[in-house]
């Protein structure tokens, strides 16, 4: 019986956060540290003719300026790899723009001064001669031959196109009773972490060692980026507390780490850079605006025989994340459905907007949006209940583990059960009665019911299915390390391969380790910060892709198991007993029932590091274990087969969502009256932590659907560079999300756990769209495009959605 796994143990992170003792990068100061500011482009698209810093460096407190010339001379472009998949011709991408700027806010240089105010003043004294070019902001315009082009190397703004097919799609459409079509859109948004980007870089020229403290999710991206750009070998990456990640802090931030490191190298002093909120909103990375042309081949009973979609991605002014929103659709390509044929076709278009980044779920919310909007469309076309249409197509629990058409293996799940529980808990029939009454009173109440999977544990080899020209995968499966050390006083210290950005890594790993080792979580502390000198590595040494539950927990589970064996071996020797007879409870190893035959962790700690004569022959001294986890069920299809079937991710959580909304006819404002999720996150290690992830991800998906988003002018100027303009939801606008767990433990993971991080952000935009469409039923309008701002809903009500459409 589990003691700590599944229990509401006290948070280990909490006490420091509520007392203001968290330590984030901005909280560190080094002797002689300078402050940096980034010089950014005010133009969406322009040639850089010259940059003259001579006025700025006249101030003796300005210690260094980096210009595009410096960037070109002193650094190398990042190597295309994991993040430029699909690029057909090489395009050099440096840490700063060197010849052209391609979005407002693109970094072109940097200043280091003795204080931030001086650095800010110095920016204004740098003379940049720009030659403005025509801005490319609209995807459909961008791919016309008449459009200005962003990258001369490509000669077109259509930077990538490709397609992928599973099953016999032609046959599916040929044998269909009906074909249902729709065009759908998702806009640009982000998770806007509250702690902006920041870096401290310190370079020791004598030993050629660079140390960076940075708010980042994936240490290896920073590590590799610095090595590639600066040609250094001796690099130490330290990641203290991270004030929110959500994918924003994986990739783009490497540019700034390089620029700040360059300042540190140039001045010989430590340099700190803290991003402004407005800098983050214009240049810190956005989720991709996606447009879909979808068609479903259906039978009259609602069975979906095939799904075909074209996707147009507005990837902004960089090629380094060209295809991530398209490739990620392989992760939940089938959603919860058995549909035997799917054809996908992608177009990645560069525009003069902020580059896209991997944001919470990347392409997965889009894929779920396609499926769930299309399920509603199919129901409307066939005059069937939308719930029945979904039921008709759901993968059945008896089919688990289920291999999807694209090669994913769904580990476990009861999708019909989730849906039924949701309808029961929300009292669906009663809600429909209420809705009828509300409509009679002229109120616009709507109900949206959707379902979606939440894949967890990424497999980088997935990309080979989409880019068959790739000879080698950029990585595959998930290798992840963890170290556990029993200290001399009997307490335990954990070292994780991934930084914590708010997912309670410390609490959760302590629960798992305590469970296995027979101690209590309060005896365990996790080493923060992540430090590449000390922490384990791994392909998945990352806080992204919903990896933690699988790889980090797997690694901690393995390391704790290994350490337990060592503890038992040493104890057996000390107590002169067969280790098999020993039990461990509350940090005491003993022969059950014996008053004398026992030894405490503290005693073992003293022995293991000091007392050689008590160590059995052949046993490694010390009580420390490092374990590198590999997912034991990664085959088959860890790399794509001849039919391009591949395991895009390895575990599959799921959730059924119900949204109940009311639309104010006069203003178009949507109020969420109720939002209920019945979720399957496998074995829940800590209910408060998992609930928090579900609440937070649902709230974000709902906020996106209802209006959070980035807007650009026709000239490519960002118009949403503050939280207020962006429409960030506060307590006043955010509904109270309700969560009920209905877990189907995974047969593939160490404790049956599955992912819970991106989760509710994946189906929630679709749930809101469905509910708003249902509310507007009296007007006979269709909801296809997000976001559903009061303005766009008002336009739907007033039947003119096409006028003055915003440019996303």
């Amino acid at each position, binding site marked *: 019986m589990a003691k700590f796994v599944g229990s509401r143990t006290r948070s280990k992170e909490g006490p420091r956060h509520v007392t203001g003792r*968290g330590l984030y990068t901005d909280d560190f100061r080094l002797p002689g540290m300078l402050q940096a500011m980034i010089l950014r482009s005010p133009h969406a698209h322009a040639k850089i003719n010259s940059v003259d810093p001579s006025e700025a460096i006249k101030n003796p407190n300005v210690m260094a300026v980096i210009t595009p010339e410096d960037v070109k001379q002193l650094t190398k472009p990042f190597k295309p790899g994991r993040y430029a998949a699909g690029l057909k011709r090489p395009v050099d991408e440096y840490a700063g723009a060197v010849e052209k700027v391609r979005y407002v806010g693109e970094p072109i240089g940097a200043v280091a001064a003795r204080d931030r105010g001086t650095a800010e003043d110095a920016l204004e004294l740098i003379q940049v001669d720009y030659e403005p070019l025509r801005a490319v902001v609209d995807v459909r315009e961008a791919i016309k031959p008449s459009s200005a082009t962003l990258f001369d190397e490509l000669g077109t703004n259509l930077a990538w196109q490709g397609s992928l097919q599973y099953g016999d799609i032609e046959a599916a459409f040929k044998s269909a009773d009906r074909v249902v079509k729709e065009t759908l859109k998702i806009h640009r948004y982000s998770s806007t972490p509250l702690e902006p980007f920041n870096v401290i870089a310190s370079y020791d020229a004598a030993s050629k060692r660079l140390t960076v403290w940075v708010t980042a999710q994936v240490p290896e991206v920073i590590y590799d980026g610095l090595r590639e750009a600066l040609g250094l070998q001796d690099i130490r990456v330290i990641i203290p507390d991270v004030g929110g990640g959500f994918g924003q802090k994986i990739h783009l931030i490497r540019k700034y780490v390089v620029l700040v490191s360059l300042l540190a190298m140039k001045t010989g002093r430590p340099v700190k850079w803290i991003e402004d909120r407005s800098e983050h909103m214009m240049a810190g990375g956005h989720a991709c605006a996606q447009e879909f042309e979808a068609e479903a081949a259906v039978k009259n009973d609602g069975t979906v025989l095939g799904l075909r979609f074209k996707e147009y991605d507005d990837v902004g002014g960089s090629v380094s994340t060209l295809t991530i929103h398209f490739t990620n659709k392989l992760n939940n390509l089938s959603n919860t459905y058995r549909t035997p044929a799917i054809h996908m076709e992608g177009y990645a278009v560069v525009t003069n907007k902020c580059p896209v980044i991997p944001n919470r779920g990347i392409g997965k919310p889009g894929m779920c949006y396609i499926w769930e909007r299309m399920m509603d469309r199919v129901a409307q076309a066939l005059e069937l209940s939308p719930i029945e249409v979904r039921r008709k197509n759901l993968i059945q629990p008896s089919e688990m583990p289920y291999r999807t058409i694209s090669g994913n293996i769904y580990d476990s799940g009861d999708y019909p059960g989730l849906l039924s529980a949701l309808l029961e808990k929300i009292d669906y029939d009663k809600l429909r009665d209420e809705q009828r009454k509300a409509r009679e009173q002229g109120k616009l109440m709507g109900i949206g019911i959707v379902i979606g999977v939440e894949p967890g544990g990424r497999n980088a080899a997935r990309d080979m299915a989409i880019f068959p020209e790739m000879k080698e995968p950029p990585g595959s499966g998930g290798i992840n390390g963890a170290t556990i050390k029993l200290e001399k006083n009997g307490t335990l210290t954990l070292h994780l391969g991934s930084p914590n950005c*708010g997912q309670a890594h410390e609490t959760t790993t302590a629960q798992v380790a305590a469970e296995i080792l027979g101690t209590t979580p309060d005896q365990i502390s996790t080493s923060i910060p992540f430090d590449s000198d000390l922490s384990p590595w791994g392909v998945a040494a990352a806080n992204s892709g919903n990896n933690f539950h699988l790889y980090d927990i797997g690694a901690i589970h393995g390391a704790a198991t290994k350490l337990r064996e060592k503890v038992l071996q040493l104890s057996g020797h000390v107590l002169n007993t067969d280790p098999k007879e020993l039990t461990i409870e509350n940090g005491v190893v003993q022969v059950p029932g014996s008053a004398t035959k026992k030894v405490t962790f503290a005693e073992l700690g003293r022995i293991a590091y000091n007392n050689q004569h008590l160590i059995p022959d052949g046993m490694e001294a010390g009580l420390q274990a490092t374990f590198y986890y590999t997912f034991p069920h990664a085959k088959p299809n860890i790399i794509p087969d001849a039919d391009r079937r591949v395991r895009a991710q390895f575990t599959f959580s799921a959730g059924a969502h119900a949204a109940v909304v009311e639309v104010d006819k006069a203003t178009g404002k949507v109020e969420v009256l109720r939002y209920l999720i019945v979720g399957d996150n496998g074995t829940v290690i800590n209910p408060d932590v998992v609930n928090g992830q579900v609440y937070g991800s649902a709230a974000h998906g709902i906020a996106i659907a209802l209006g959070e988003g980035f807007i650009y002018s026709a000239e490519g100027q960002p118009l949403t560079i503050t939280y207020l303009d962006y429409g960030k939801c506060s*307590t006043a606008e955010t509904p109270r999300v309700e969560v009920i767990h209905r877990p189907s433990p995974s047969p593939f993971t160490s404790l049956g756990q599955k992912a819970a991080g991106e989760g509710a952000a994946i189906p929630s935009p679709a749930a809101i769209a469905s509910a708003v469409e249902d509310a507007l039923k009296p007007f006979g309008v269709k909801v296809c495009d997000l976001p559903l701002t009061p303005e766009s809903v008002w336009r739907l009500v007033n039947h003119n959605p096409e006028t003055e459409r915003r440019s996303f």
Partner: protein
Amino acid sequence: MKQTIRVTINGRLYEEDVEPRLLLSHFLRENIGLTGTHVGCVVGECGACSILLDGKVVKSCLHFAVQADGREVTTVEGLAKDGELSPRQEAFVKHYAFQCGYCTPGMVITSHALLQRNPNPSDEEIRKALAGNLCMCTGYVQIVDAVKDAAKGMKNG
């Protein structure tokens, strides 16, 4: 030209020479070393830098340090006494009313002020009071629960 200011912070008087353009948030973090006051936007929208100025919640990024001259400041570091969490802080820990922790000091300060003003707030009053403190992680559910629970604890104790 620097100005001399005298500010009482968490019960202790500090005298410092500051530039007039120095923000109160940055004064607290950099001059005094109280880094619990976080800066998320510098334009008064996010509330991470919320502090009490003469007992009232303000966003310290919207004040200059010189405006605090002769006044009393309480930061998140001033709420716990000798490592003992205040009942509000304890409620935040119990309810997991944080994730990344960046908004937490501001949330705790604002909740503290709310409960002093209104020891028995409704959900709606809590949500209204916290509407100037943004959180990107939690969806606010556990934060509202923590404040309610803290209020209950205060009534009982």
